[in-house]
C-alpha cells in the first residue's frame, strides 16, 4: 500500500502507531526495489546501502579515504598492486567474521559478466584479487595506481550468503541482505517501509532507522512538519520556504550534481537520425516545463552549471519550432497539417516513459506530451514501477524516450552514460570522438587537461542531441532539530549517520 493513497490523518496515525523507541524515520520518493549493492541503480538504494553495508574504505568528515572494513593497506613501490588487511573483529550481521575471501568474492562477482552487475565499472581497474590469508587480500591492478584506496569504496558482500546459489539481481539476497554496516535490515513492511535495526553490540547512536516511501512530495513536507518523519532526503523547491520557516526543522544542502533529461533510444530507427532528435529538442519549451516544479538552472549538456567540466560557451538549446520543422523536413518527414509523417508515411509517434512513483516527473511528462502534440508529434505516456523500469529500460532497452534524472558524486564521471561501452548508456549513444576524449580524460593527471577534455565532450554531446538536457534543481534535505550531530554526506547522505542521535 502506498502512502500516496493514505489520507494525511491516517498517515500521521500510522507514524505514531508504528513508532518504536525513537526511530529515525526518513522519506524517499521511491522505496528501493532491492537491497543489493551489486545492482544499485537508484539513489534511494545507494542511501540504504550506506546504512546496511560497508566498503573497505569510506569518506571521513573531510572526504578523505579512511579505512572502514579495511584495517590497513600497503601499496607496492611499483604501484601495480596492494595488500589490504581486513579489520580485526569485523563481523557480518549474522555473526560470521568478515574475511579476505568476502572481498575477493565481491570483486569477482562484480567483474563476472554473467552476473551483469551494474557496478562493474567500479572494479574494472583491478586485474585480480586473491586472499593471502583469512584477513589479507592482494589486489593487482591493470595500471599504476597512486591512491587505490580512493577506489575501494564499493560495498563488500558476504560470500557465505551466496553459497550454493549464483549472484542474481532477482536472488533472495535482495530481500534478505546481510551486511556489516551500522544497521541490519529488520523488515520490509506492508506500507513499503523498511526497518533497520542496530545490531547487537553496534556502535550507532540510533537504535532504529525506518525508510518510508512517500511518493507524494506534498505529504513528505507535511509529515515532517507534523513530526511523523524526522528526515526528508530531498525537499521540493516549492517547499523550501515553508520548511525554512519551521523552527523545528533544519535544511541541509544535498545537491548530488543531479540533472534531468529526456533520453532518446538510439536503437529506435527514427531516433538514430540526429536531425530528428534535434527537432524534438527544439520543440520542447524547457523553461515552461521547469516553472511548475521549482527553481533551477537550465542546462546545455551533461553537467550542472557549477561543475568544473561545464562548458559555459555552449548555450542551452532554444525553443524553436520553426527550426524543428525545417530539420524534420530535411530528414524526410512531411507535415499533413495535423501530424508529422515519417519517410515511410507513418505518423511520428513516440512513447514517453518515466517512473510511476515520481510525482514531479509525471507532471513534466504530461506537460511535454502536450507540447509535442501541439507540434504534430503523436505521444503516448507510460509510467513504470521500479522493477519494470530496470527490466524494460536498463535490460531490454524497450523505450522511445525516457524522462529521468542522473545524480553524480563529486567526480561527475559521465563515462558510464556516454561512452559507447558505458554500463549506464542505455540510450545507446555512440560517438568515437567522445569515446576517445573520455578515455583520455581517465588517463590524465593534469586537472586543466581533464577540464579541457570534458568541456569538449560537453560540446560534442550537446551537438549530437542524445538527450534533451533539462535542468538541475536546487536540492536540500530537511531534518528535524531533534536529530543532533547531523552531517550529511554530499552524495551518499548517510555515511556519517552512525554519529547522529536523537
Amino acid at each position: 500500500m502506498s502512502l500516496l493513497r493514505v489520507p494525511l490523518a491516517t498517515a500521521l496515525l500510522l507514524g505514531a502507531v508504528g513508532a518504536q523507541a525513537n526511530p529515525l524515520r526518513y522519506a524517499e520518493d521511491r522505496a528501493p526495489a532491492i537491497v543489493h549493492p551489486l545492482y544499485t541503480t537508484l539513489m534511494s538504494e545507494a542511501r540504504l546501502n550506506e546504512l546496511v553495508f560497508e566498503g573497505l574504505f569510506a569518506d571521513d568528515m573531510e572526504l578523505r579515504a579512511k579505512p572502514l572494513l579495511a584495517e590497513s593497506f600497503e601499496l607496492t613501490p611499483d604501484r601495480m598492486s596492494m595488500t589490504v588487511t581486513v579489520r580485526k573483529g569485523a563481523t557480518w550481521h549474522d555473526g560470521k567474521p568478515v574475511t579476505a575471501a568476502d572481498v575477493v568474492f565481491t570483486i569477482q562477482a562484480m567483474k563476472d559478466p554473467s552476473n551483469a552487475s551494474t557496478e562493474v565499472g567500479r572494479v574494472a581497474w583491478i586485474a585480480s584479487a586473491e586472499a593471502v590469508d583469512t584477513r589479507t587480500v592482494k589486489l593487482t591492478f591493470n595500471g599504476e595506481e597512486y591512491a587505490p584506496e580512493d577506489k575501494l569504496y564499493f560495498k563488500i558482500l558476504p560470500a557465505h550468503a551466496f553459497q550454493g546459489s549464483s549472484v542474481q539481481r532477482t536472488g533472495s539476497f535482495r530481500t534478505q541482505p546481510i551486511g556489516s554496516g551500522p544497521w541490519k535490515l529488520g523488515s520490509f513492511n506492508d506500507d513499503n517501509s523498511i526497518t533497520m535495526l542496530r545490531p547487537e553490540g553496534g556502535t550507532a547512536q540510533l537504535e532504529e532507522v525506518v525508510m518510508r516511501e512517500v511518493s507524494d512530495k506534498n505529504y513528505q513536507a507535511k509529515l515532517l512538519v507534523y513530526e511523523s518523519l524526522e528526515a526528508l532526503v530531498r525537499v521540493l523547491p516549492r517547499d523550501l520556504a515553508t520548511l525554512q520557516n519551521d523552527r523545528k526543522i533544519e535544511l541541509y544542502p544535498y545537491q548530488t550534481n543531479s540533472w534531468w533529461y529526456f533520453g532518446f533510444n538510439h536503437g529506435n530507427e527514427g531516433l538514430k537520425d540526429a536531425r530528428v532528435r534535434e527537432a524534438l529538442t527544439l520543440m520542447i519549451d524547457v523553461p515552461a516545463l521547469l516553472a511548475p516544479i521549482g527553481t533551477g538552472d537550465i542546462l546545455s549538456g551533461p553537467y550542472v552549471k557549477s561543475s568544473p567540466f561545464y562548458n559555459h560557451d555552449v548555450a542551452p538549446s532554444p525553443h524553436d519550432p520553426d527550426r524543428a520543422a525545417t530539420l524534420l523536413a530535411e530528414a524526410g518527414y512531411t507535415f499533413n497539417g495535423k501530424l508529422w509523417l515519417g519517410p515511410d508515411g507513418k505518423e511520428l509517434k513516440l512513447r514517453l516513459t518515466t517512473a510511476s512513483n515520481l510525482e514531479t516527473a509525471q507532471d513534466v511528462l504530461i506537460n511535454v506530451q502536450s507540447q509535442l502534440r501541439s507540434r504534430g508529434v503523436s505521444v503516448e505516456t507510460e509510467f513504470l514501477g521500479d522493477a519494470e523500469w530496470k527490466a524494460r529500460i536498463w535490460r531490454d532497452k524497450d523505450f522511445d524516450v525516457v524522462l529521468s534524472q542522473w545524480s553524480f558524486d563529486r567526480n561527475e564521471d559521465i563515462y558510464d552514460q556516454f561512452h559507447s561501452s558505458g554500463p549506464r548508456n542505455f540510450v545507446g549513444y555512440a560517438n568515437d570522438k567522445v569515446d576517445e576524449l573520455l578515455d583520455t580524460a581517465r588517463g590524465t593527471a593534469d586537472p586543466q587537461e581533464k577540464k579541457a577534455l570534458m568541456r569538449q565532450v560537453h560540446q560534442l554531446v550537446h551537438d549530437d542531441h542524445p538527450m534533451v538536457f533539462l535542468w538541475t534543481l536546487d536540492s536540500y534535505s530537511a531534518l528535524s532539530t531533534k536529530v543532533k550531530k547531523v552531517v550529511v554526506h554530499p552524495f551518499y547522505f548517510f555515511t556519517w549517520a552512525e554519529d547522529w542521535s536523537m
Partner: protein
Amino acid sequence: MTRCLPVAALLALGACGTSDVPPAEAPSAGWWGRLATQPEAFQDLVEPRRDGWVSMHRHDHRSAFAALSQAPEGHPDRIGAVRAAFAEAALHDDLARLVREANRLRSEAWAARGGTPEGAGAVLAAWGERCDTLPPGAPAALEERLTLHARVRAGDRDAVEALRATAKEPVLREQADGFVRDHVDPCVDASLARAWTAEGLGTLGQPEARLSDLITALQGEPFAASLFAPWPDPDALEACEADRPLDGASFAALYAPPAAVVEGLGSPGVEEVREAARQLLVWSDAAREQAARVATPDGAQLLDGLAPLQSYRQGVLVGAARQALLKDRPRQALALLDAARDVSDRDVGPANSPSLFVLLAEARVRTGRTREALDALEPLTARVPTVHSAKELVGDLAVLQSMDRIGDSKEN
C-alpha cells in the same frame, strides 16, 4: 543599553563588540526598530540617493558606493559610502583568502601527482602565494599585469575597472599537449581589496585611519551607520581591537550579536554554534514581533518589505562564520553559514549577501567539500566577475582531489 563584554568573552567570540538588547524590553533599540516606529526618518535618509540605499539593501556595494559617494561632505550618505567601500573591500578580501587557499592546496595536490607543469603555471602559482613581487622568469605579459595591479592598489579607478573587466579572461594562454591551457590571475581580489580600502579611507577623509576612527565616524551618524548593518546601532561597536588599521578585514570583524547568543557563537563546538544559530533565530523572531507591535502603518510595510531582522541575523552569522574560519574552525563556519542562508532565494541579493557565498565556499574547501564549494561560488558569477579565478582554481583542486576515484552515478 549597550555594553562591552569582558575581554575573555570577546576573545572567545572573536567579534569586535556586542549588544545585549533583549527584544522584550527594547524592541526599537536597533535600526529595525527605527524603521518600525520612525519610517519618516528612513524616508529622509534614503530619499536623496535612493538608488544607493536600494543597492546597499541588495548587498551591491559597488553600486551603493557609486551613488552614495556623490553626496557632499558631511552628508549622512557619505557614511553609507564608507560602509559600502569597506564592505566591498571585505568581500574581495574574503575572495582573496579563498583564492590563496585554493592556490596553495592545488599546488600541494598537483605536486603529489608529479608536479605542476613548468612555465607560466608555476610562476602564477608562486605569485598567488603572496601577490606581491613576481618570481623570476615571469613572462613579459605578467610584468604588464603586475603594473596594472600596482595601479589598482594605489586606488587608480581606471585601473580597477580595467582589472575587473578582464577578470573572466585568462591572464595567459598556452598551447599544451593537445589542449589549450588557460591561466587565471590569482591576485585580482587581493588587489581589489586594497583598492576598495583606499576608496573607503579616502571617503572617510582619513588615509591613516584606525578602526576606532571609523567607529567614531559611525557614531556621528547613527542611522546611516547602522541601516542594514549587522549591528543594532553604532554604539554597540565601542569594543575591542579598535587600534587595528582600518581595512576590509577589520571592517568585516565588526558585527554585534545579541548577548543571548554570544557564548554559543563563540564556543568551540559545532553543535553549540548550531544551537546558538537557532537561538538567534528565536531572538530575531521575537524582535520582529516586538517591532511589528509598535510599528506605524508605514513602518509595518517597511518591516515586511525589507525583512530587516533576517538581514541583521544573517550579517551576525556571516560575521561569526568569518571569525570561525580565521580561528581554523571551518566545520563551525559551515554550520553557521548553512543556518544563515535564505534558501528561498538562490541568488545574491537582499536575502543573501555575496560574502555568505564566498565564506561558504571557503568553509567547504577547508572541510574537503571542494566540489560543493563550486556550488557556493556559482551564484556569484553574475554579480562578482572576479570570482572566475576562484572558480577555476577551486575547480582544478576538485578535479585533482577526485583524480583517483571511480565515479559513482545513480538515477534520481
